[in-house]
């Protein structure tokens, strides 16, 4: 493997590491959101349930976007 190829590969890995860190943060937010929604729903306040579901969906689509980004970086790195 040439040095140029190797450095390209390394930057790809850094980008993936960054995307993974973002996903983990989003996941932590989503875990909290789910537990908080469940708590309020069981307490009887059903007003917060719809906004929570919408926000959870947005977070999921954020994770999906980052996952597609990671897949794209992975495929780019394999191109000769």
């Amino acid at each position, binding site marked *: *493997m040439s040095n140029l190829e*190797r450095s390209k*590969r*390394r930057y*790809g*890995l850094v980008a*993936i*590491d960054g*995307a*993974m860190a973002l*996903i*983990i943060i*989003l*996941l932590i937010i*989503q*875990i909290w*959101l*789910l537990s908080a*929604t*469940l708590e309020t*729903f069981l307490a*009887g306040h*059903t007003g917060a*349930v*719809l906004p*929570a*579901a919408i926000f*959870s*969906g947005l*977070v*999921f689509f954020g*994770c*999906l976007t*980052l*996952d597609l980004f*990671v*897949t794209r970086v*992975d*495929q780019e*790195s*394999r*191109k*000769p």
Partner: protein
Amino acid sequence: MPLLRSPSKEPLWKDEFSVFTSDERYVTRRQFTKFLTLASLGMFVGNLWILAKAYFTKAPSFPSVTVGEVGEIPVRGVKLFAYPTPQDHCILIRTGEEEYVAYSQKCTHLSCAVYFSAKEGRLECPCHQGFFSVRDGSVLQGPPSRPLPQITLERDGPRILAVGVKGS
């Protein structure tokens, strides 16, 4: 996923199980990211489930049950009854000449039976010294975090009816 895979000269197994450690790192990271996204999807589905339950669960209807007669118990006296099911123990307290209040007897801490202390004028739980206000069932002191569920009472002539549960 074969659907999203761009054309490559190597077969899929060669890319996934590469002999080069730098390629391996890509594979493990990509798989972990996919797993995280799946977890995110699972939690989104959880939120949707709660949403569905909130919209499709009917408000509970409570029966109307006679729990006593006016004047049956003295002022600052109590009567125990069961509402809405025989397993739900409740306590009726006459706080004044014409004032009656009723609460669920299950302490909101660890479900011990609360009793009315006429001397202190409050509902007390003997297990861990949790005290509730007799006016609205809110917590005055102790480990309970939620107020006592209140039984909605109605007067029907000489009878006192229990018609609903608030804040259970």
